[in-house]
């Protein structure tokens, strides 16, 4: 790890003052913000970023707050994953969020890892994580995964980079209809969490979200989900702890045995949490049975283009959709 200056701001004003200017794209990595450090320290150790300054957010009061009002939640960017996992009220009202938080990493990682860090973590693609591989994510010319070893890469939304977004919370929070509160030098703005994440073809290929160099994620607001049932189903290669090979965040509002409203978001298959709007629409008015699960699975994976080593993700994701929907219908 290259040495850096450790800065301890005590307010958000100070934090954004320390960050580069909104258009300083080339020098943005000279300053990195530090929350739980569970992703950043790995990046520093692998020399993927070598910032001059590391800005510790933990001295800013209030950023870890987790509060509920009338069923809606405000989740501070520095709330730990363990805090979400262990919150009984959150688990009752937004089961998918608590389940997703509990599925991240290990106990040790969840005790320090934060919501903001989980949403803003960098990809796990092994080419990206290899110091010597200057892939398109790191300003190089090509995505080595595309023609290389791509077992863990994207089947949807890929190109020119084929990473998958590694976050478990992201699909769950997108399915819950969350919005992100962002603070920059010019003030605050809110973005639907679904629009927070960017495909490599639509945003800067070296980033995964809309944050400008002068911006920091401050809070995630989750609307009430009264009457909804939800779950997060994740499949990993190693069951003790791992990133998702594929995951499903599903939420249903069922009336009289039939789906009245549905949200379906896939994780581990695309560079962003993959919202399946066609499948959601198809669910409305149906009861959950084998035929519904089959139709929804087909629609959800529509347009998938597996690479040489990851076609297994298609039947896997469809199976997880069936599992999630069946679980919600019988819960």
């Amino acid at each position, binding site marked *: *790890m290259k040495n850096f200056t450790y800065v*301890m701001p005590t307010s958000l004003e100070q934090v954004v003052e320390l960050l580069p200017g909104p258009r300083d794209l080339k020098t943005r990595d000279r300053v990195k913000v530090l929350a739980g450090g569970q992703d950043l320290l790995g990046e520093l150790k692998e020399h993927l970023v070598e910032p001059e300054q590391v800005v510790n957010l933990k001295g800013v009061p209030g950023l870890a707050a987790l509060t509920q009002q009338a069923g809606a939640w405000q989740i501070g960017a520095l709330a730990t994953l363990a805090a979400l996992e262990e919150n009984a009220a959150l688990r009752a009202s937004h089961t998918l969020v608590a389940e997703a938080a509990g599925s991240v990493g290990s*106990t040790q990682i969840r005790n*320090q890892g934060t919501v903001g860090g989980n949403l803003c973590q960098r990809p796990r693609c092994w080419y990206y994580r290899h110091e010597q591989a200057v892939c398109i994510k790191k300003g190089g010319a090509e995505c080595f995964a595309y023609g290389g070893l791509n077992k863990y890469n994207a089947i949807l939304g890929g190109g020119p980079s084929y990473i998958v977004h590694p976050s478990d919370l992201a699909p769950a929070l997108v399915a819950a209809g969350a919005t992100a509160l962002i603070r920059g030098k010019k003030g605050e703005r809110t973005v639907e969490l679904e629009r927070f994440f960017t495909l490599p073809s639509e945003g800067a290929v070296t980033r995964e979200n809309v944050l400008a160099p002068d911006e920091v994620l401050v809070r995630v607001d989750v609307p009430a989900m009264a009457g909804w049932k939800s779950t997060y189903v994740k499949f990993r290669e190693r069951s003790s702890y791992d990133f998702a090979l594929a995951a499903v965040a599903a939420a249903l509002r069922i009336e009289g045995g039939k789906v009245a409203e549905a949200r379906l978001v896939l994780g581990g298959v695309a560079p962003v949490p993959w919202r399946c709007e066609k499948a959601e629409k198809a669910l409305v008015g149906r009861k959950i049975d084998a035929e519904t699960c089959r139709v929804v699975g087909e629609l959800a994976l529509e347009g998938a283009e597996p690479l040489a080593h990851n076609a297994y993700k298609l039947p896997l994701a469809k199976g997880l959709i069936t599992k999630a929907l069946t679980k919600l219908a019988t819960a």
Partner: protein
Amino acid sequence: MSDAASPPEAKSSPEPRSGSEAKPALTRRAFFKGAGVVAAGGVIGEAVHASNARAFGPAMLEGQVEVELEINGAKQKVTVEPRTTLLNALRNHCNPPLTGTKLVCDRGSCGACTVHLDGKPVYSCMTLAVDAVGHKVKTIEGLAPQGQLTVLQQKFCDHDGSQCGFCTPGFVMAITACLERNPAASLDEIQNACSGNLCRCGTQPQIFEAALAAGRALQSKGGK
């Protein structure tokens, strides 16, 4: 570790490029630089930090800095750099060195470096030493008085819970935290509590037996 032999970087970093075991040499320049930061920024204690921040902008730590860590109930001043991990600080910067906490993967994957931060198990390799200031650190050395074993440690012996033993301190710390929260933890809960710890000898069955036995013993003793 292969790049430990590479030439020092331009910023005269006293730590090897990626290894985290070497002891930094305290140079005269770094000492004064560090001392200056201590005087201007205030490293020890949140109160000093906050008051200086208001007057001069945010406090900064640069070069070699002296911080106060609370380890196993005792406060200790250690000289580290901002990049020094808590694991490195424990093993190489404390006096006496606390080498019970093991360095294995150094990437938050294996759990051998597990310590408690304010009672919660964390990976000390993925924690900066400067981030541990103001928090209570407990290491394997701090679980039982010198020469004694905790109930769980005794059960590890009774149930053959170690083969090579290198992962053992991490497992003991992870399971200790689990049993402190709930001595009646089920096998599932114990497995979940140490799912972030690897044992490449494959001793998990005995580790789980030891953990369950310790849980039973703790329940009949009513905690502790």
